């Protein structure tokens, strides 16, 4: 790894479901500490970018690099061969993901959700994991809900616990997959506030898929417009969202802004 390597780099990544091409020889990158928002119509491949990066789905061809190291491959004798499970696990530890539907573990309290993977996956001592988890729950404003089960929390609270749970694994790259799409409108703000703080801290490389254009403009360093499994246009949020050059981008944005 060198300083010149971007944090995340996609090199000619192709992903197909049967005959449907979801990612079409995609080249993409995000620099260390950069906040990149991915927008686009449904089926454009924007969520798939996050899912293949999280290794929730395989890719058919191409290579994904994290800090210059291949994720889905590993080099052996100077050649790239399919990655072993151990290799994927090691690289994947740098990535954390927040899901649209929170996906909290329903049989565990907020605190248990946050210490589960550090204690039982990483082998962190329970006392230390608990201290760290409580700090994180405090950071998302839910220290008093530590012993609540997900079913006893609102959607916004669940999503904030999910963010704390993800941070507890100390990832360097954060993926947010439409984190407010499943929320009632009055709860969107509390979740966006947490994400805004994370984005401004500069400690994380963040990829955000969202339909919240105002928020994207506010926190992103760069916005990418996806369509047909490719990036059609990318640029600073002010330029891309304010004055898109591509006709498709223009159409998409006018539809999204109209709907609000």
């Amino acid at each position: 790894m060198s300083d010149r390597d971007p944090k995340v780099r996609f090199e000619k990544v192709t992903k197909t479901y049967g005959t449907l091409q979801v990612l079409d020889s995609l080249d993409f990158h995000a620099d260390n500490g950069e906040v990149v928002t991915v927008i686009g119509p449904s089926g454009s491949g924007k969520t798939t970018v996050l899912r293949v990066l999280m290794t929730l789905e395989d890719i058919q061809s191409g290579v994904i690099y994290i800090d210059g190291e291949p994720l889905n491959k590993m080099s052996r004798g100077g050649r790239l061969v399919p990655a072993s499970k151990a290799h994927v696990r090691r690289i994947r530890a740098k990535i954390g993901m927040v899901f649209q539907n929170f996906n909290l573990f329903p049989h565990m309290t907020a605190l248990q959700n946050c210490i589960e993977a550090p204690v039982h996956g990483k082998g962190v001592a329970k006392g230390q994991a608990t201290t760290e988890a409580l700090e994180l729950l405090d950071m998302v404003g839910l220290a008093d809900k530590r012993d609540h089960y997900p079913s006893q929390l609102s959607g916004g609270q669940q999503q904030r616990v999910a963010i704390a749970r993800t941070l507890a694994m100390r990832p360097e790259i954060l993926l947010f997959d439409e984190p407010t799409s499943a929320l009632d409108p009055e709860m969107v703000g509390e979740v966006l506030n947490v994400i805004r703080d994370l984005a401004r801290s500069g400690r994380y490389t963040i990829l955000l898929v969202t339909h919240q254009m105002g928020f994207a403009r506010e926190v992103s360093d760069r916005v990418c417009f996806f369509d047909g499994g490719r990036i059609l246009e990318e640029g600073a949020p002010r330029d891309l969202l304010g004055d898109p050059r591509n006709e498709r981008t223009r159409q998409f944005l006018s539809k999204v802004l109209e709907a609000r």
Partner: protein
Amino acid sequence: MSRRLAAVLVLLGFLAGLAIATFSEYRIFLPALLRGAVVTVKVGVLSIALFYAMAFIAGIGRLNKNRIIRYTATVYIEVFRGTSLLVILFWLFFVLPEFGVILSPLAAAVLGMGLNYGAYGAEVVRGAILAVPRGQYEASLALNMTPRKQMLRVVLPQAVLVTIPGLSNLTIELIKATALVSAVTLVDITFASVQQNQIHLRTIDIFVITLLLYYCLAQFVRFGGGMLEARASRHLAKAR
């Protein structure tokens, strides 16, 4: 709560009935029936332990990525679901000795019952595991949990809840199916009743008591399962 109370009352009533019966003329055959009940309970408890163990082993095995484990589990399930329990008991007790394997009547009964019901239970477990939402697998993968931890810490605790109604149903069936173990010379409730009836010819009395004994055993399982389910699902109501 009131249902539980009713059950306790029924049970107390039955025990009182037994007490009365013990000191009445029923005492000539009742001790033999109760000795049979002890055998039934012994076979039942041991078989249930094996049944649950096999249900989870084979149910999880059937979803394993390893093809050999998966096929082994499938073969086990298909063999025991596809054959008659009574014939399996005969095999374990009368045929295996021909190959030099000699089992005690209790061992043959427990093995036959446990393996047979384990095969049905495995399908309940498999279905329950498949019912755990995909998001739970994705979240645990995103937290870099190993497949083992994912299964033990995330999937199974949620799946177990879903298995409770199905497994308690099978448990009740198992208890009643223990009537078959007289085929391997065990004197259980059913066999004891038949014997006592042949001696005393009190057909109605004896078989009414036999029915009640089975009913009580089944009620134990039913209420146990119900309480377990209520306890385990306390926090999950809204999440599903």
